């Protein structure tokens, strides 16, 4: 069996971040709205219980908000980004490596930790995150990312797991898979789920037992890989699944520490181009770009530095060069001399269908950029060269996003730090 992988996922992440600094939000329904205050993208358990759906447009739930006194917040990405840095820092000592999947989900490589009771180890990791940040989490453990994700969902849904589900255990895995609706399996789209239902495949367990060839016929190569991962065979399925609408990340550890900005920029440029490719492949555009990089947290004798910067993309884009330009600005702003950077990445959030994206007045309508993109994609391997790309191309700041109910910059602005009564 392959090395154990865990997925640690923050519960109702944005709401939990708001609650960290405002105790009056505990125990009451809370929702956080998307960019421009359009729809609910995070809901507390109490709000879910009131039937507020993920992505519910705010103008359709105004009555509910008023009648139940639901507390409503604009998204405060500066806060969520800062809290994420803290969450990751708390996770790091517990893992050999990690891979940020979205702002609130991180895959953790437990290779080398197998001799431990991994459930206890995961509980400790979760407790550390809770202690340092107040953010509650759930953990799923499995031999593949798909099973870790399923384990996470099970841990979240079923209190019997007390926050940690280990699907390496056959009995637990079968128990969970037999109860897990196939349409909720990560990467199974609605159309595929319909076809599977016609074949009598209703649970993740049924899907696991489906012949792989048949799987490829019904779905795509993604479904075939999912079947493999449900059987415990890693098949790189994360890389092929359509990114979730809340975001995706491209990250990598460096073989040796990077201490000059050009090399770092080269790597981040490659991630930006890769992220753009992935968006285009799925017909999506992104509204926010975050870059991050940090030193090796396990080498405490070396100077430590963790940086991240988030920029909003206006217009929303899947253009690798535009993403690169944002990434460049982020890296330039966050760079500090004198540190050996061992990991870097780019994260895209606020994803939506390219066809539905809000148009802006000054959008470049010509096909030139598309052709350029294709050419750039071809030389993707030679990423060092991307550093020569000018950072000023094609994005114009039109107007600020609406965010009328945003909480303070509790952890990012000295004038807005929380007050304590003495």
């Amino acid at each position: 069996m392959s090395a154990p992988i865990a997925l640690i996922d923050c519960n109702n992440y944005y709401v939990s971040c708001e609650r960290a600094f405002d105790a009056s939000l505990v125990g009451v329904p809370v929702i956080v709205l998307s960019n421009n205050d359009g729809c609910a993208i995070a809901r507390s358990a109490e709000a879910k219980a009131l039937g507020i759906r993920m992505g519910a447009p705010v103008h359709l739930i105004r009555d509910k908000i008023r009648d139940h006194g639901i507390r409503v917040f604009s998204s405060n990405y500066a806060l969520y980004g800062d809290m994420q840095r803290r969450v990751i820092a708390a996770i790091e000592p517990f893992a050999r490596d990690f891979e940020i999947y979205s702002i609130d989900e991180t895959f953790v490589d437990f290779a080398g930790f197998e001799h431990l009771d991994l459930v206890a180890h995961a509980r400790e990791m979760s407790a550390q995150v809770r202690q340092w940040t107040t953010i509650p989490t759930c953990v799923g453990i499995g031999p593949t990312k798909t099973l870790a994700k399923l384990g996470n969902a099970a841990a979240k849904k079923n209190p019997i797991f007390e926050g940690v589900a280990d699907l390496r255990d056959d009995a637990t895995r079968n128990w969970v898979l037999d109860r897990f609706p196939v349409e909720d399996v990560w990467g199974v789209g609605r159309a595929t789920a319909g076809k599977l239902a016609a074949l009598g495949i209703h649970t993740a367990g049924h899907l696991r037992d489906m012949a792989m060839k048949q799987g490829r016929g019904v779905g795509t190569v993604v479904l075939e890989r999912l079947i493999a991962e449900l059987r415990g065979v890693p098949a790189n399925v994360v890389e092929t699944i359509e990114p979730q609408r809340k975001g995706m990340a491209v990250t990598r550890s460096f073989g040796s520490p990077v201490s000059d900005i050009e090399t770092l920029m080269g790597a981040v440029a490659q991630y930006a181009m890769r992220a753009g490719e992935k968006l285009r492949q799925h017909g999506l555009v992104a509204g926010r770009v975050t870059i991050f990089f940090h030193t090796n947290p396990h080498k405490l004798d070396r100077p430590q530095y963790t940086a991240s910067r988030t920029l909003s993309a206006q217009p929303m884009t899947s253009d690798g060069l535009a993403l690169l330009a944002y990434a460049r600005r982020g890296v330039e702003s966050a760079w500090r001399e004198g540190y050996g950077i061992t990991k870097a990445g780019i994260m895209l959030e606020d994803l939506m269908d390219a066809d539905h994206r809000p148009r802006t007045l000054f959008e470049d309508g010509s096909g030139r950029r598309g052709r350029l993109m294709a050419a750039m994609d071809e030389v993707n391997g030679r990423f060092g060269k991307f550093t020569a790309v000018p950072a000023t191309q094609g994005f114009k700041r039109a107007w600020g996003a609406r965010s009328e109910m945003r909480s303070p910059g509790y952890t990012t602005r000295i004038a807005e730090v929380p007050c304590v009564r003495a």
Partner: protein
Amino acid sequence: MLETVPVHVAAIELPMLLVSTPAGFPSPAQDDMEEPINLADWLIEHPAASFIMRVEGYSMTGAGITDGDLIIVSRAVKARPGHIVVALVHGDRTLKRLRRREGRLWLVAEADGYPDIIVDEHVETWGVVVGLARKYV
């Protein structure tokens, strides 16, 4: 209101760069410059678990903390009696000294006229004050 405030003097090594430079020719020895002192790094040992908060009120002036001060609150340090802590009392953030008296924990002010608060199920110790920052001008 003026009060005597205890000041902890910490020894900080101030690196001096004394390199004689021949005019017009940079010395290679100067290349290995040290970073300037970063007060935040010194104040905040555990950035991932530390939060900056602003003090409102005068109940801790006896401990040298007054209205308008910025404090560093760490959640990586376990609160023990004697620590100055940020606690949630019925959900409200308050700054007090944690004390043990006759087997019970109390939140105690360090100024006259503030009642002691017993630590019960309505009180949650949120973090420990590990540092203080103040500007005078």
